[in-house]
């Protein structure tokens, strides 16, 4: 009976000289034990809460998916937000003069007069009347090819680029143009851009709401997973209490796993989102050959996510990690309060 043999040794063991428990910390005993080399063969101490007992892989995946969605939302929100502020700024960068045809008026002369009036204004850069061909191209979808502009009362457009928005006075241009040119009106696109900007701001608010919902459901998943981990490790928690562990120690042991898990999930989701940004940015590039997508995204100034988007992704990774750890800590402490 090997067990008995060993016990025999143990039975004889507790002689004070053989190494009583009160002795080991004496200076003499410590180096002796180290010399025996037994301690050198020890593995690094295993975590007190077994890692596999925390609903690991599934929860990491949930956190990764949630972070991915949160990062995509952040990316979309920054793209739309940047576009919205760009639209608001473009308000002063381009103005269109429209000349409606009237009886007995020479359209070409009116165009010249309007062009000259616009050029005379302060802050104006280039002024360009749309050529006949360009006007035909604009109307082609509705009126077909081979259009004779002279025979139809088609309004003509003059594009005025504003070089120095600060010096430019829209009212003065309006006054000058309407004084010199019959049937002319000046459109600064403000109605159109303000509506677009309002819509974009609403989308940004919606995006933030989606972000909060995604993070909220992630927090709830972590709460459930922490509870499951606590229930699955009831024996560990009990033993820790019996050996005099404080609640904060127990919470720390669990939190350690969740911190790592949150970091892994957050990083995975963030990296995946960055890849999506890069791929979308490439596809939307004019040179990618996907002209359709590129053109459809033109309105947003392209889909390339700017520095703000990538900073947002970093913030999300950080937030997810901290939220996961903090949530699990709170859940553990709440659970411990309940069981005693």
């Amino acid at each position, binding site marked *: 009976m090997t067990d008995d043999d060993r016990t025999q040794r143990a039975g004889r063991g507790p002689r004070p000289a053989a190494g009583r428990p009160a002795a080991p910390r004496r200076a003499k005993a410590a180096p002796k034990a180290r010399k025996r080399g037994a301690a050198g063969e020890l593995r690094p101490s295993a975590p007190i809460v077994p890692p596999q007992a925390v609903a690991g892989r599934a929860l990491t995946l949930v956190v990764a998916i949630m972070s991915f969605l949160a990062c995509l939302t952040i990316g979309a929100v920054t793209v739309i937000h940047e576009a919205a502020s760009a639209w608001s700024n473009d308000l002063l960068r381009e103005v269109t003069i429209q000349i409606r045809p009237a009886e007995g008026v020479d359209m070409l002369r009116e165009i010249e007069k309007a062009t000259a009036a616009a050029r005379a204004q302060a802050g104006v850069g280039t002024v360009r009347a749309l050529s006949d061909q360009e006007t035909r191209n604009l109307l082609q979808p509705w009126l077909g090819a081979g259009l004779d502009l002279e025979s139809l009362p088609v309004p003509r457009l003059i594009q005025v680029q504003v070089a120095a928005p600060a010096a430019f006075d829209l009212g003065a241009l309006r006054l000058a143009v309407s004084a010199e040119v019959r049937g002319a009106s000046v459109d600064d696109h403000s109605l159109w851009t303000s509506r677009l900007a309002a819509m974009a701001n609403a989308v940004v608010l919606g995006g933030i709401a989606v972000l909060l919902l995604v993070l909220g459901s992630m927090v709830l998943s972590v709460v459930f997973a922490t509870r499951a981990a606590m229930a699955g490790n009831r024996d560990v928690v009990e033993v820790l209490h019996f050996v005099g562990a*404080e609640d904060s120690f127990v919470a720390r042991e669990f939190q350690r796993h969740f911190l790592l898990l949150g970091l892994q999930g957050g990083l995975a989701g963030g990296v995946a989102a960055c890849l999506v940004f890069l791929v979308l940015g490439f596809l939307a590039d004019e040179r990618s050959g996907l002209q359709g997508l590129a053109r459809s995204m033109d309105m947003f100034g392209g889909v390339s996510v700017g520095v703000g988007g990538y900073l947002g992704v970093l913030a999300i990774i950080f937030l997810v990690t901290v939220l996961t750890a903090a949530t699990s800590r709170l859940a553990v402490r709440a659970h411990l309060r309940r069981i005693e």
Partner: protein
Amino acid sequence: MIRFENVGLRYGMGPEVLRDLTFEIRPQSFQFLTGPSGAGKTSLMRLLFLSLKPTRGLIRAFGKDTSALNKSQIPALRRRIGIVFQDFRLLDHLTTYENVALPLRVIGQEESQYRSDVVELLKWVGLGERMHVLPPVLSGGEKQRAAIARALITRPEMLLADEPTGNVDPPLARRLLRLFIELNRLGTSVVIATHDLALMDQVDARRMELGEGRLQIHD
């Protein structure tokens, strides 16, 4: 060290399982706690270990009235008490060494500080060759000794052992008893809950006998 005055305990609205217990566990004392199954030995052990609160009466542990303690003060008191469970309560994913070192990790000691102490204690209880082994591989006697070593590693002032010989054969039980006596000689108060009369006959020690919720003490 620990003093009970007219302590009573009931679970929920049930009858009192412990009634009018008045006794003291003195420093460096050795006592058996005995009585038939269901007499309340384990409940009394849990009261001693502060994991249950009495429904009436007063318990003073290390000079403090336990009813006045808040939850955060209990761990510090528990660290002065070592407990050995009948079912050992070793953590299966930790080696024998790590299980024994657990109370020291809990109080924040670094491994370099406690390594030699743990190794030495494991040798003292005869587990020097088994320190890298996980508990499921250990025999009942080895688990028992690992559990005892874990209770002793912080050098508690009091050791509570619940049926420490319940899972082992008589020769091993005798050796474990010698270990407890030795420990007591070194200054620790020992309370052993058992219903093993043969074991108690081997030592001339105080006997606390529980029966129908009441305690009789034979000094």
